[in-house]
């Protein structure tokens, strides 16, 4: 009997738990396991397999978590960033849960009669009806719209639940931000454990996002033992470790998953692709441009955060100038130019992907023409108001695509040998619950060994 059959028969009613740690890098988690910062996770990891995982391109949370929840690539689910342009327009909109074109993991579980608790997954705002309880994560604003069913809002208020860290606190001081990060974690953990213990569920998904905020603003503290926040950084991860331990204590025969949506590394420089496009004659902006909405006539290409480049094609955009026939040549020219951007004698672009290399599905028409992947240390940005190609600001940490984390409480031998991709997580969770993945998931279950 194949492993899949075994899951089907024996594990029909098995439950699964997924704890998300936004942006927790595999290499850092490994290091904290080894150096004793995360002893309880170290114990858990002995009971399963800890793997390095690839995430989406672009490697930002809105795209990555949507690929997590749908098991699909952006060409299918339609989310390419935190912001996008409306069809045939330069007008920005902020994609929300209603823009997701695919079935989510919990919708699928719900269809099969399984109840889910889904807390703080980014890009699930506004909360959509489902079988269970869902509280949306970033960029949720209003707790009422972030919570399904609405009857659960009073309990959240009673628990003093926090939707998110307010990153603007850093303008005040780093202390204020750190305090908010710790407070948010504390309230989140309490709420998660309350739900874990007091609700009926088959699938429990709880995401910690303050890891990401911590790392954006305090990454420099981790390498430098004399840094003011060095021990605060370690202490924060110790709190996360304690939470993971408390989940571990509660585990029966549930399959436990721990994952992050991308990795992290330090920033040398932020790189403004729109500056590069403008300097090289591809982009024209109106005076005092604030966003790409202020693009001027005669532009041939523009960029959106983080490394998405769009050709200003005739027919695709209101003042598109580029003929389809010229698309190929222009792509090649821009790719060549990008490969020549360097800092301290090193090329900062690792690879430029073309749309069809990484996206497929009905929403591919909304995809960027190119996705630029930088080397570690060079964070690509979509800002349009920069005079220099590169600079630094308050952010000290940036995302990485190849160093996300995946832990599965199953022996290595039960899993496929190849490196997991974030789209594999949903089918893997479903398989662990004895459910087959619905059509339209690009990923494959890690249990599906050939």
């Amino acid at each position, binding site marked *: 009997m194949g492993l899949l059959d075994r899951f089907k028969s024996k594990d029909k009613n098995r439950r699964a738990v997924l704890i998300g740690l936004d942006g927790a890098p595999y290499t850092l988690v490994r290091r904290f396991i080894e150096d004793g910062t995360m002893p309880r996770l170290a114990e858990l990891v002995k009971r399963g397999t800890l793997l390095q995982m690839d995430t989406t391109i672009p490697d930002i949370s809105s795209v990555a978590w949507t690929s997590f929840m749908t098991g699909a690539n952006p060409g299918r689910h339609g989310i390419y960033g*935190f912001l996008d342009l409306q069809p045939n327009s330069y007008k920005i909109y902020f994609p929300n849960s209603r823009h997701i074109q695919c079935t989510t993991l919990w919708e699928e579980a719900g269809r099969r009669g399984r109840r889910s608790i889904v807390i703080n997954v980014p890009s699930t705002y506004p909360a959509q009806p489902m079988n269970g309880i869902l509280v949306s994560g970033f960029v949720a604003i209003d707790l009422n719209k972030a919570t399904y069913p609405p009857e659960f809002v009073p309990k959240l208020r009673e628990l003093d639940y926090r939707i*998110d860290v307010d990153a603007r606190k*850093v303008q005040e001081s780093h202390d204020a931000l750190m305090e908010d990060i710790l407070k948010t974690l504390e309230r989140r953990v309490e709420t998660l454990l309350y739900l874990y213990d007091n609700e009926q569920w088959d699938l429990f998904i709880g995401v910690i996002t303050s890891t990401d905020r911590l790392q*954006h603003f305090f990454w420099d503290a981790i390498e430098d033992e004399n840094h003011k926040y060095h021990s605060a950084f370690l202490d924060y991860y110790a709190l996360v470790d304690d939470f993971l331990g408390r989940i571990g204590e509660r585990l029966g025969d549930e399959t436990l998953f721990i994952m992050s949506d991308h990795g992290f590394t330090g920033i040398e420089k932020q790189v403004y692709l729109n500056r590069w496009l403008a300097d090289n004659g591809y982009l024209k902006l109106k005076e005092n441009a604030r966003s790409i909405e202020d693009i001027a006539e005669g532009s041939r290409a523009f960029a959106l955060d983080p490394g998405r480049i769009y050709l200003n094609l005739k027919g695709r955009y209101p003042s598109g100038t580029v003929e389809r026939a010229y698309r190929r040549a222009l792509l090649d020219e821009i790719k060549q130019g990008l490969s020549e951007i360097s800092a301290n004698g090193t090329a900062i672009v690792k690879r430029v992907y073309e749309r069809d290399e990484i996206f497929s599905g009905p929403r591919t028409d909304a995809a960027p023409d190119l996705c630029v992947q930088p080397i570690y240390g060079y964070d690509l940005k979509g800002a349009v108001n920069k005079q220099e190609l590169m600079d630094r600001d308050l952010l000290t940490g940036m995302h990485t695509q190849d160093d996300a984390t995946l832990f599965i409480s199953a022996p290595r031998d039960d899993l496929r040998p190849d490196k997991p991709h974030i789209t594999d997580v949903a089918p893997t969770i479903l398989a662990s619950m004895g459910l087959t993945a619905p059509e*339209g998931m690009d990923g494959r279950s890690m249990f599906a060994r050939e």
Partner: protein
Amino acid sequence: MAKGFTIWFTGMSGAGKTTLARLIEAELKNREHRVEVLDGDIIRTNLSKGLGFSKEDRDTNIRRIGFVCNLLTRNEVVAIAAAISPYREVRDEVRQMIGSFVEVYVKCPIEVLAERDVKGLYKRAFAGEIEHFTGIDDPYEEPLSPEAVVETDTETPEQSAAQILAKLEEMNLIAPALPDAYSDEDDEEIRRRLEALGYV
């Protein structure tokens, strides 16, 4: 996941089927649906080329349009048919086949249509230059229980379209308008939060 369904406009020539089909098409595309319009005038130049206006030919035309709508609907596309489709029986036949079917009766008194005479057809029909003209020497059978009725002699095209969209939302076939899912203040707040993390 977006659902497929068919919106079937029926009504006399000049009542507003094409106008409304195009308005609804644009709005649904904005809301990220895949949409295809099957307009009677266009269908008669290709899929139904050569067919005339006898009852038999009209029914064949409607069956063909219905057939394509069915294919589209089951592939998660919103199919919008805009053809006079004067006969009730064949309309009900395609409704049966497609299942997820929203019949919209585009209603307008013939005096107003003759007055509008968008294509100059009424003038010619009254002069006896066109035979089998629906509403003049050919019957139009009103739908008995359409999902929506729009009265285009008293409503603006935008009002009629809004009424149809509200019906689609009520039937849970489409989600409420997307770009407006956030208020302007929400949009500003989201923008500020994204700016704080360097995303805008």
